[in-house]
Structure formats: structure tokens, C-alpha cells
């Protein structure tokens, strides 16, 4: 078990996302579209969808024995949550609400929604541990881990942030991490976020709308 690193400040893309949420101004500046109004994020239920969806970079992660890459996200909507199995409150709470939301979906909609729990603490969470942890909360919640470089690439692509805390007397440490759910669309692109606090009913309604919209406009 390697020592926790100092805060991973490389993942401050969360700031960019906040700017996007505040009005798409940053995306507008970056793209140099200075004529006309900047593209605005669109609210669909509890989700905030980006005006421009971005393809995900290449990565390899594993869930138990199964290795996956970015193409595994194609074909349905995916909720991405970044956490760790030593997480006492936020991760179990979020996964419990997500599982209940998934349970509320009609089967036809449910088939178009996946959930990935990606560990940001690979030193303590191997792919087997991440997988069994996530599966406890609900069938179909896929827990993944892998090399930190791969985790960081995915996290950075969606603006997820985490930092490892100081070691305590017992050798443990907490991980501060993004509390949001990140949305990947069926084309495998980062599409938006859902911010806490989460509610199973509104989460389910949001997922249903997203799936229906995608079917209406392929």
C-alpha cells in the first residue's frame, strides 16, 4: 500500500465545470465564439447538460476480472460516480439513492441506463474490491478501479476532482471527492452533471427524460 499523495490538484477542472454551469461562459471563451450569445447548458430535470458534449479520452479500467475501456460506455446513458470504499457516508448514501432510482425506472428505460462507481483510491481499492462494493448497492452498479493515470484521465475529462487526505494515527486517510454524478451519453461523450443532494424520484424522472430524448433525436 503506497502512501497517499498530496492533493491531486491536477483535477481542478471542476472549476471549469462550475463556470460552465454558471452560464457556459468559459466554453464560449475557449471556443472563441464571441458573436451571439454563448451556448447555454440545458436543464433536464435534475441534470445540467453541456452545450457541447465532449468525447472521452482512452482509458482502461477493470471491474473484478473484467477489463473495460471508453467504448464500454457506448450504447446507453451512464451515471459516473467517483468515490472510494473506505467512504462512510457520501458514497453509500449516493449509491443507495442511485440504486433506488434505477429500481423505479420502467424496464425499457432501465435497459438504457448504466452506473459506474469509479474508485479514486486505487491503492486500497483493487478492481475486485471496487466491484463487490458497488454490487452490494444494486445489481448493475459496476465498481471499477485501475491505474491512477487511467482514473485521472477519466476524472479529468468530466471535471471530477479528488484529493487524498493526510494519514491519521491509525494509518487511514479520507478522500475528498466530487459529490456529483457525471453523465455520459450513449455516444460515449461527457454530457453533463447531476449535483447533490440527490433524490431517487427526481433522479429516476431525469433519467427517463434523458433516455426518451435520446430516442426521439438519435
Amino acid at each position, binding site marked *: 500500500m503506497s502512501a497517499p499523495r498530496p492533493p491531486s490538484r491536477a483535477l481542478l477542472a*471542476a*472549476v471549469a*465545470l*462550475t463556470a460552465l454551469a454558471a452560464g457556459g461562459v468559459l466554453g464560449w471563451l475557449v471556443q472563441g465564439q464571441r458573436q451571439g450569445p454563448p451556448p447555454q447548458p440545458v436543464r433536464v430535470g435534475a441534470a445540467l447538460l453541456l452545450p457541447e458534449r465532449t468525447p472521452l479520452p482512452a482509458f482502461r479500467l477493470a471491474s473484478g476480472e473484467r477489463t473495460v475501456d471508453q467504448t464500454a460506455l457506448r450504447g446507453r446513458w451512464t451515471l459516473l460516480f467517483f468515490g472510494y*470504499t*473506505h*467512504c*462512510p*457516508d*457520501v458514497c*453509500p*448514501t*449516493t449509491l*443507495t*439513492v*442511485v*440504486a*433506488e*432510482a434505477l429500481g423505479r425506472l420502467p424496464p425499457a428505460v432501465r435497459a438504457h441506463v448504466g452506473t459506474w462507481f469509479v474508485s479514486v483510491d486505487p491503492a486500497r481499492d483493487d478492481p475486485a*474490491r471496487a466491484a*463487490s*462494493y458497488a*454490487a*452490494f*448497492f444494486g445489481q448493475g452498479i459496476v465498481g471499477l478501479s485501475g491505474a491512477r493515470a487511467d482514473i485521472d484521465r477519466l476524472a479529468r475529462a468530466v471535471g471530477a*476532482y479528488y484529493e487524498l487526505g493526510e494519514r491519521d494515527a*491509525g494509518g*487511514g486517510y*479520507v478522500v*475528498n*471527492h*466530487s*459529490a*456529483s454524478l457525471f453523465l455520459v451519453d450513449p455516444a460515449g461523450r461527457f454530457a453533463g*452533471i447531476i*449535483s*447533490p*443532494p*440527490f*433524490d*431517487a*424520484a427526481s433522479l429516476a424522472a431525469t433519467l427517463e427524460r434523458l433516455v426518451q430524448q435520446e430516442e426521439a433525436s438519435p
Partner: protein
Amino acid sequence: MSTRIAHAALGLAALALAAAAAAGPAPRLAVEGAHVRAAPPGAPVLAGYMTLRNPGPRPIAVTGASSPDFERVEIHRTVVRGGVARMEPVPRLEIAPGDAARLEPGGMHLMLIGPRRKLRPGDRVRLTLHLGDGTEQPVELPVRRMGGGAMHRHGGHAPEAHGG
């Protein structure tokens, strides 16, 4: 009529409370809804939740907790700032007379570190709350598998703490 009876009953209750306060030096918290959330097998850290009411005339502080079922117990608060969930230790939880502190998912919680035995739904965890005046209060927490519903939205004692 019935109002008068109610008043009399209230008066008696107040007297009884005052007597209890005067007689028993140890402050007592009313504990409601105490439970440990069932966690995946092998989970190294669990969370305990409960509502602590102070029915007495004096403030009561919870300064810590311990359990024979865990190596260590700490009180923490989940705070979400800028979309990032952080855990902040709560070294002293002060509960004013007539007030209540809610320990609930996404907010304050007992962080139960290092389970010493396998805990399954239906098992009971014995826990001791350490109070500010040096006394202790035992609490028993059944292990429960929780449904989702909503994360807490308003921290009763911690308006800055939002569900994380």
C-alpha cells in the same frame, strides 16, 4: 376542561423534569432512530445515524463515542462545497435544551472505523456516547439496510452542511 387537565399534566411533567434534573446529575439525551447502515461485506468503515434530543434544562455536549464493535468511532460532518464532498470532524456536538441534533445520511454521522466483527442487517451495535460532563450514555444501534429516498437537504444544526 380538557385544556385545564392538559395544563395540569404539563405542569406535572415540568415538575417531574425539574425533579429529575435536580436529582440525577447525569444529563440524558433522548435517542431516536439510531441505526448503523448495512455496508458491503468487508467494508472497513461504516456509518451510524440517529437523532439526539436534549429534553433537559441544560445544554448537553457529545464529545466522542466508542464501541466494542469498532476500533474507533468519530463524529463527522459531510460538507459539500463547490461540488466536492469533504468530511469535517465534529469534536464537540453541543445540543441546547429542547433542541435536537440529527445525524443523517449526507450530513453528520458517526464514522465507525474498523469493524471487529461481521455486521449484518438485524445485528445490534453497542455504542457509548461520551458527554461533556464526563458521563457516558449507552446506545444500541440495529444494523439496517437502507432504502434510498432523499438525502438530507437541510442540516438542522449545520445549515452549511448539504447532502454529500
